[in-house]
């Protein structure tokens, strides 16, 4: 494959998109069990509160944040003539996403470690 920043952005976009769809299915499976009564609901909710899932939550945050900001980048690219700044925009998305993941992920990690 022809490897450039644009290619990396594209692959991440697709990958995070798929991850978000799978997450949605899992989310509906857990929350939707509310219709089946408190035992099933509590069981499922507890199953996704384990430390492994807490770490997965940080990954989910990364997927949401990256997909959202790359989506904003796409809108900018579509509406405005920003071709000269195309690389800057890719890097802006990577960096802003990384910062937000750190900003959101550190509290999650601390919470997880505290409640052990």
């Amino acid at each position, binding site marked *: *494959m*022809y490897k450039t920043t*644009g290619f990396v*952005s*594209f692959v991440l976009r697709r990958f995070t998109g798929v991850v978000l769809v799978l997450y949605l299915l899992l989310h509906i499976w857990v929350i939707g069990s509310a219709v089946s009564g408190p035992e099933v609901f509590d069981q499922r909710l507890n199953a996704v509160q384990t430390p492994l899932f807490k770490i997965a939550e940080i990954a989910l945050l990364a997927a949401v944040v990256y997909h959202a900001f790359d989506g904003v980048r796409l809108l900018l*690219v*579509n509406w405005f003539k920003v*071709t000269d700044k*195309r690389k800057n925009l890719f890097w802006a998305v990577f960096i802003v996403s990384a910062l937000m993941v750190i900003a959101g992920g550190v509290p999650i990690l601390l919470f997880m470690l505290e409640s052990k």
Partner: protein
Amino acid sequence: MSDTQKTASVRIQRFNPEKDHKPHFQEFTVSYTRDMTLLDALHEIKSHQDGTLTYRRSCRHAICGSCAMNVNGINMLVCNTPIKEHINRKGMVTIKPLPYLPIIKDLVVDRTKFWEQYMRVKPWLIPSPEVPEKEYRISTEEVEALNKAETCIMCGACYSACTVVGTSENYIGPHALLKSFLRVLDPRDAGAAERLEEVGTHEGAYRCHTIFNCIDACPKKLDPTKAIETLRNLAQKRLAFEDAKKKRLTTITKAVE
């Protein structure tokens, strides 16, 4: 700086359709000077080291588009690229044929699909049924808007750098979409309706993922992505654009202010 001889290792992908099952690499050593281009290096290898090395080339000054190849992972013309700019830290430069196209022999690829997609957008002027008696009069701004699209030399660097081309069967491709843009925005052209119908589809302007490999690869610094975005916008406002075009065709023989 004196013209001291330095040597570089040129690693070329070879494929002999009569003998090989798959492509393999072969390394050559070349002495180079400050002004030597990659094409000069290929000529040197073919003349003095291996006469079977096969590649396309013609004008050697970046206007014919024959010599587009993949050097160290990037598409470029080899005739106007100095070899010293692409020698890596290990003293090596790697030359492969354009990606995503079938290989005929060594560095020569089969461009049939490239030309088919090009013909698909009708890359010629479709004049209006009322041809003017004298010349068409076009403003400087209208000409400038088309300058970049007209400079395309059809080298294939953009097409074979495009990830969407590499992962889809029938994506029209940046080269053809740029040509379509050229004709759609040409004030003398009356075929906007049929052009926008062909390219305003999931195989045309809407398939572009704005990965921008095309702009990076283009040896003439053209902007196919901008052309594709414009086509997208025009396809959405098709009726208004066609009206404006028809009006412009009625004034095209009058002097420009």
